[in-house]
């Protein structure tokens, strides 16, 4: 398993590094940057939904909050780029600590509702607290940073900047999933009672997972701020949270590559397909209904299963053994 996913990893990294070279057009490079940002956000939500079994409908909170703090600090409060981003990261992680404390009072759908409500409260504050947030007009006027003298205003430079964070996030989350703590989180999802009897503080494990997800959400939010150089309450609204959840589940909750594929799907539908199909929102809805119906485990495990089925037939004909365990089947449906 490791050898093959290792090959995939190398292929992915090489492909990602080559994107600007292959594409050329700055518009599509910018689009690819957006995919990376949303992929980080979706991967972070996947920590909760896929690995923690905690379905959150308020993940836009971290994206928007981090973006607001970053832009507010660097434009209005006079902080430097680096310190502004750092404070945004710390503050958003702190917010996740608080939200996790509140949301983990419940589980399953109760958890979903609390995260939704907390997200709505942040949205309401952003809309209403005009002196700080600019209300619906949002905050703008931010410049992209110049780390080491590189102008991130250039689409390619920004793409590689985002790519660095994406790869670190991917690696961090990939390591996390395999680590003892990642296993603790998954165990807490599958058998919380057993985990307690084995000496795990399930609440604390889930809370740490929640905060960790918030941390990566903050990274996505800071990149969002750099990319858009603008933030308004839309970044915090229910639609953004719902879309992020769709990315995770459509791609495959509890898999490493699923959220990335989901992010590609949603970003491309919203920004590219919408130019050709007027009823793209309907298409988006239909795509999700179809995925849930025919590939309920998500696109990545679904296609893997289908290809394996096809390969397995061949292999069985050749007298091979049973296929390897994917370990993703248990990921489904732990919220009840």
């Amino acid at each position, binding site marked *: 398993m490791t050898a093959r996913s290792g090959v995939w990893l190398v292929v992915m990294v090489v492909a990602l590094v080559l994107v600007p070279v292959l594409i050329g057009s700055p518009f599509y490079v910018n689009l690819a940057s957006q995919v990376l940002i949303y992929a980080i956000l979706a991967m972070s939500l996947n920590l909760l939904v896929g690995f923690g079994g905690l379905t959150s409908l308020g993940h836009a909170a971290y994206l928007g909050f981090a973006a607001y703090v970053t832009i507010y600090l660097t434009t209005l409060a006079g902080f430097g780029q680096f310190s502004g981003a750092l404070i945004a990261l710390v503050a958003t992680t702190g917010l996740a600590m608080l939200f996790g404390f509140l949301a983990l009072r419940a589980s399953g759908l109760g958890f979903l509702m609390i995260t939704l409500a907390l997200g709505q409260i942040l949205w309401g504050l952003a809309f209403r607290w005009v002196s700080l947030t600019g209300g619906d007009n949002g905050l703008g006027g931010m410049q992209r940073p110049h780390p080491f003298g590189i102008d991130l205003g250039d689409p390619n430079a920004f793409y590689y900047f985002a790519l660095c964070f994406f790869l670190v996030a991917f690696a961090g989350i990939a*390591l*996390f999933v*395999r*680590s*003892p*703590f*990642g*296993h*603790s989180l998954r*165990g807490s999802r*599958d*058998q919380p*009672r*057993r*985990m*307690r*009897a*084995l*000496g*795990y*503080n*399930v609440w604390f494990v889930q809370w*740490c997972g929640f905060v*960790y997800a918030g941390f990566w959400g903050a990274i996505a939010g800071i990149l969002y701020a750099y990319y858009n150089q603008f933030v308004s309450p839309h970044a915090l609204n229910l639609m953004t949270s719902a879309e992020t959840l769709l990315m995770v589940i459509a791609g495959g909750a509890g898999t490493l590559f699923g959220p990335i594929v989901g992010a590609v799907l949603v970003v491309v539908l919203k920004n590219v397909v919408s130019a050709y199909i007027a009823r793209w929102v309907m298409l988006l809805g239909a795509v999700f209904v179809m995925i849930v119906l025919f590939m309920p485990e998500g696109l990545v495990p679904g296609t893997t299963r289908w290809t394996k089925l096809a390969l397995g037939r061949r292999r069985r004909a050749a007298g091979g053994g049973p296929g390897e*365990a994917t*370990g993703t*089947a*248990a990921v489904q449906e732990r919220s009840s």
Partner: protein
Amino acid sequence: MSELALDVDGLGKNFGGLPAVRDVVLKVELGERHLLLGPNGAGKTTLFNLIAGDIRPSTGSIRLFGRDVTRMRTDQRTHMGVARTYQIITLFAESTLTHNVVMSLTGLSRCRFDPFTSLDRRTGFRERAREVLATVGLEHLADRKVSETSYGERRRLEIAMAMAQEPSLLLLDEPLAGLSADERGEVQRLLESIPRSVTIVMIEHDMDVALAFADRITVMQRGAVVVEGNRAEVVADPKTKEVYLGH
């Protein structure tokens, strides 16, 4: 008198006004083999859940090794040396047997909060897990998924996971239920091989095995303790018969 491993005093638990456990007093000495008997619904498993910390008592107190743990969380008690098996099997069905035991080992290790290194790299855990599996005769299935094993094998895995924690107090909830005669013999031998440094409290319906195993016996009915004493006392007590025949 030697120190008590478990000291339950006046313990009660109500579910929606209905008492599931009433005023239970239970004292288990270090190294003792203690048996809980009683018909279904007598409150034995609820008592286990109270001792392990899964639920909070309505009244009374629990002391473990001299420390009051009434308000402690389950995982804190586990770190004090309590381990248990479950009546209804709660294993990680899609993971291998080894992984199940490894989870049991990491639960007591500081590394359970390590988010960076791969668990697979920690070969020490895997080796230790295989050793533990060997003690219950499951080493040949170490890399099989739990969902692909038999019921009896899972019961033994339950015990292995509890044993891996090297507990001081072991709570066994019907370890023999649903096993074939051969398997019973195996598990029985396994239990007998547990050193006396481990205190054991067991719920069991199989009288022959249980009585042979136990030092002291508590009989429960409708949430309360009816009879308590050593093997002979309990067997002789007319209330014991009443509990079993009257039900």
